[in-house]
């Protein structure tokens, strides 16, 4: 499966937030999007997911425009993992993950026994099977993020879109969640797009990176070429030092 954005310009009433975006993600690739606050990452996601219609340009799934597809059909191909938040009602974890089966369930039906088995499998795959009967409102932020990933995977998507999956997580949970994400790309052959505020996360799970500036893609490509002190200075406006040793890669702020 290939997700392709061609010359996408999008935004809200009157104003154009993102301009001339060209991106391509294939199964087995993980694209990390970096950029300062307010640069248009959220608008980009909302456009890809069809929440807002682009002012110009095309979004293609295997060459077919998503605007000719029904929402249900898109949901079978693209899964969305939002930032973890608490719903107003105490749902049980398994019920939350079952919601991901929605595109496969008829308009007037509920999940079947088969759907429940699939959910059980996903929960064990992500090592959260023991959370199954717990309340989603009562588990930790990291666990909640994994539950949302499981819910998106229940859609059996070919492309997964993650909106800052590590925000609000502690240091350990950040790394654990990213490991799960990397496993998905490697073992399940899923194409993935995620935004993050931590440049170092690109080294943990990204195979491609795109840097955004002023609503446009400033640079994109292979992380080893793109992730430089100079480029980070350009998009974040701060000085960093790049550490590159065996098993350790990352940027440190210059004090």
């Amino acid at each position, binding site marked *: 499966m290939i997700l392709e954005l061609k010359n996408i310009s999008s935004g809200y009433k009157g104003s154009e937030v993102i301009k001339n975006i060209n991106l391509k993600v294939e199964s087995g690739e993980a694209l990390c999007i970096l950029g300062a606050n307010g640069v248009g990452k959220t608008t980009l996601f909302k456009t890809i997911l069809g929440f807002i219609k682009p002012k110009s340009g095309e979004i293609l799934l295997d060459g077919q425009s998503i605007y000719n597809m029904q929402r249900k059909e898109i949901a079978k191909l693209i899964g969305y993992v939002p930032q973890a938040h608490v719903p107003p009602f105490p749902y049980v974890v398994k019920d939350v993950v079952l919601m991901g089966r*929605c595109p496969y369930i008829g*308009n007037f039906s509920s*999940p079947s026994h088969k759907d429940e088995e699939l959910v*059980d499998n996903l929960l*064990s795959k992500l090592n959260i099977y023991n959370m199954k009967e717990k309340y989603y409102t009562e588990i930790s932020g990291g666990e909640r993020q994994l539950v949302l990933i499981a819910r998106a995977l229940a*859609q059996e998507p070919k492309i997964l879109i993650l909106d800052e999956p590590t925000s609000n997580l502690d240091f350990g949970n950040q790394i654990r969640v990213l490991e799960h994400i990397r496993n998905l790309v490697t073992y399940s052959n899923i194409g993935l797009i995620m935004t993050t505020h931590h440049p170092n996360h690109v080294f943990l799970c990204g195979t491609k990176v795109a840097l955004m500036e002023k609503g446009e893609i400033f640079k994109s490509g292979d992380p080893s070429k793109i992730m430089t002190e100079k480029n980070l200075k350009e998009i974040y406006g701060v000085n960093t030092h790049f550490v590159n040793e065996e098993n350790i890669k990352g940027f440190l702020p210059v004090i």
Partner: protein
Amino acid sequence: MGKGLPLESAAANIGNKTRRISKESKVNIILFIFLMVLIFISLIIGKYYISPIQVLNSIVSKILREDLNMPEEIYTVIFNIRLPRIFAGLLIGAGLGTAGAAYQGMFKNPMVSPDILGASSGAAFGAALGILYSFSIFGIQIMSFLFGITAVVITYMISEKICKHGDSTLILILSGMLISTLFSSLVSLIKYVADPYSKLPDITFWLMGSLSSINKSDLYIIALPILSGIILIMLVRWKLNIMAFGEEEAMAMGVETKNLRIVVIAASTIIISSSVSVSGLIGWVGLIIPHFARILVGSNYKYLIPTSILAGSSYLILVDNIARNIASTEIPIGILTSIIGAPFFLYLMVNIKRGWV
């Protein structure tokens, strides 16, 4: 690092799942039995006492079409007075509970009651107008029903106009408050100009809410719309879970949120307008019943809606029994549901363990 994907760990747990009656189904069976017993008791008690044996005999004789030598007035009281009233209570309670639960999920807000979009105040205005112009009972009901629906249509159109795309829930609720307030003010205006000796008391009593004037023909009129509203919400109930996570997430999971929203709003509005048109304003039921049901079976709408139906109808029949038996004259049920509802809601807020407080 590199733990791989352990699938075996839980495989054993998945295998030995046996099909048993779920806890939720048990709750609903118990509630159903309770409702049946309550209906039977409601046929017995009242100003005109009928013994349980007489109630059973008359029902049996009605079904088998056999004459068991029962006094004619017992038949009249059971089949023309009490049964229509009980069924009306059942339908209205079930409808209010269902609509309330559906709205709370759709608006992601546990404090929402089914009249949030102006259905009740619109219907109240329609009825007050009908009384002011001395319409027939049927005319008043039609006015009430039409204005209930009109109010919600106006609310919906305003929010559509303001919010073309994205999450329009907040705008919808705000427009609803606006329209509600407008129609409430119009009701006050009608009360102000109404004849204080004939019309004003009628309007005031009607607004207090009561099941006392309901007869067989009223029941026939409201049965179809309320039942179709309930059935519509029953059909889409599982999807309401997804709406509780927000409109965008629901869209990403393949829900046509706009269609679902229109179905739920239409169904709820028909339920509320029909209820208000025959019984006046009966408050609090749509707010507290879903919470009560949530305590019993949890948040999943698959079970929550059936439980809300059973709990809502039981509650309204129970309160109506109190309304017609506690004092020498009947107390309007709308007053009672509020008097009972407010402290009950306080109890829920204090004692609810999880979620929104």
